[in-house]
């Protein structure tokens, strides 16, 4: 109390008259030089990132238009010493599509079920936390480690019928099934995160309304919650697809990097799934100077096609994910797109 009693107003020197009207924007010219330097660097970094991205797209586009011929998309690759004779990349395109289908078909039920269980049931709490952190661990595991894990699993005698076998009977653990199963692990985390965030965003009163009508929890999930998170699941699936088509490490270890689709056995579909093959990414890798092919023109053409796919998926996420995208639109469901 005494402190307030001792307080005396000090006489302020007369300052400049207060400006009225809209607030005055502080001009960088009046800032300290440190702040001005930071300003310059921030602009440079932001613009620089955009320029790098632009340069990559423009360069790949230029190379793509230079080397991509429509015939490349429908010709099968062939073994040849010249770039004109080595065919197109029909088989890798089919391989990418096949793997995407397998991976998504395995990852979607897994991701959606896990998200439903965590968001709607989640008992006991510690078990839910364990599940959540194992998905985080899967998300943080390098794809090359997942590939080696897949190799060790599918080389087991039990799984031998699922993968490519050498003439002598040795199991190599390489097949579309093996690669697809590991791809589903890569697609799982974004799928799970997108669905869970969607479920958590559904207002509680919708659930309460369903319970009030006498619906059970599972009926609520099927009739109310799943329909309302459809767009989130779609976002998750798209993110998963873009992970799968962009992955190379799993392909080079688990799909055998054969030039053409190489079915195992004569049964039509099963043989293909048990066989080896290539995808766009492994085709690019094999045709770059790092691989055996060393046909940079083909690699550029395939890379252009891959980049177009990725761009397209980005646009799709933009379309369906706009409602579910987070504040800046940079991440969807907490996952970087």
């Amino acid at each position, binding site marked *: 109390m005494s402190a307030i009693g001792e307080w005396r107003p000090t006489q302020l020197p007369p300052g400049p008259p207060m400006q009225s009207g809209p607030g005055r924007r502080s001009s960088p010219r009046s800032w300290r030089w440190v*702040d001005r330097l930071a300003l310059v660097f921030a602009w440079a*970094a*932001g613009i620089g990132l955009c320029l790098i991205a632009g340069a990559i797209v423009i360069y790949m586009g230029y190379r793509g238009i230079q080397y991509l011929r429509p015939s490349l998309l429908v010709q099968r690759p062939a073994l040849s010493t010249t770039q004109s004779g080595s065919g197109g990349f029909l088989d890798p395109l089919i391989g990418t599509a096949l793997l995407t289908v397998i991976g998504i078909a395995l990852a979607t039920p897994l991701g959606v079920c896990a998200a439903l269980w965590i968001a709607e*049931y989640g008992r006991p709490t510690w078990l839910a936390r364990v599940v959540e952190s194992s998905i985080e661990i899967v998300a*943080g*595991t390098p794809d090359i480690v997942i590939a080696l894990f897949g190799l060790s699993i599918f080389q087991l005698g039990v799984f031998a019928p699922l993968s490519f076998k050498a003439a002598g009977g040795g199991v190599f653990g390489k097949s579309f099934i093996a690669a697809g199963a590991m791809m589903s692990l890569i697609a799982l985390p974004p799928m799970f995160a997108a669905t869970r965030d969607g479920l958590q965003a559904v207002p509680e009163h919708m659930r309460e309304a369903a319970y009030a009508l006498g619906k059970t929890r599972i*009926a609520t999930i099927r009739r109310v919650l799943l329909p309302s998170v459809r767009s989130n699941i779609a976002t998750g699936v798209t993110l998963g697809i873009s992970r799968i088509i962009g992955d190379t490490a799993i392909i080079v270890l688990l799909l055998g990097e054969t030039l053409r689709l190489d079915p195992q056995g004569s049964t039509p579909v099963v043989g293909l799934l048990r066989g080896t093959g290539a995808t766009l990414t492994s085709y690019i890798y094999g045709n770059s100077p*790092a691989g055996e092919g060393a046909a940079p023109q083909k*690699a550029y053409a395939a890379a252009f096609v891959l980049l177009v796919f990725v761009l397209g998926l980005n646009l799709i996420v933009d379309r369906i994910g706009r409602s579910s995208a987070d504040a800046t639109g*940079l991440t969807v469901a907490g996952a970087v797109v």
Partner: protein
Amino acid sequence: MLERLRHPWSDTRAERTLGAVSLLVCAVVVAMVVFVAIHAWPVFHYNGLSWLGSGGNVGRQIAAMQTTTQHPPPSAYHLRAWPLVYGTILTTSIAVVLALAISILSSIFIVELAPARLRRIAIPVIRLLASVPSVIYGLIGILVLVPFVGNHLITTAEKESVQNVVLLTGAGLSVTVVILTVMITPIMVALICEALVSVPNSWREGAVALGVNPLRAMLAVTLRAARPAIVAAAVLATARALGEAIMISMVSGGNSFAPKPIDGLVFLFEPLRTLASGIVDFREGIGAPALGSTLYAWALLLLFAAFVLSIGGYLIKLPLRKYQVRG
């Protein structure tokens, strides 16, 4: 059977089914650790922890492994993996430090400085940069950057100075780090932007009202509040950089050589190999038991690092939840 499935499910049954499916993920994680560890076991059993040390020529040690028989003697597992561990730490740490600076600055740019029209361009562009597959980065690196560095940045004198030790082609530390930085920066930008936006606006407005200029308010208040998110972003980026295999295998020169800072400027151009890129490089030899086991040991090391980073990331996010800031 089908009749039972068509019947409306009871809640208990649904809960158990969904729970069982979720537990499958845990089983996969456990299986992953167990399988990789089992395959890596002989290496650690025969070498002990000196496996991580340095000594000898890794290339020659691995070549010796490839020639061993189906049941190799313990001596066949001999390897000193330090050059690869060092290469991994070196590339990852430089790239993360560079990316951290760039991403903080560009996040400030996107959130605070950029005019609305520029922001509408920058956000999709950065998302695109995050989703470009690593093999395309590798392709650009090996076909554009490596020849450029090899032909224009390395002088003949520099090449001759180390020609008895390594061959300088342009593929090496500098190209690897540059591309790695470009690959991980967008991830960090996305997470940092998210955190900067979710810091309450009034905090910053309070600072501005006290006469601080908007940029300084951003740096001193918003960025400070978002510190845990920045660390979390760095952790995520580190995990990504550690595990990058294909791109590094394409542009690093594929030589198990530890770049030496003592070489001066040449250091930047020396080839290297990381744990992840080593697995890709030697994948053909995985049939040889000794080499196969060694590859699994590298994978186990990566898995361990990923675990540590996961736990670290979780611990760092804890104080964030207190402010209800999403990271």
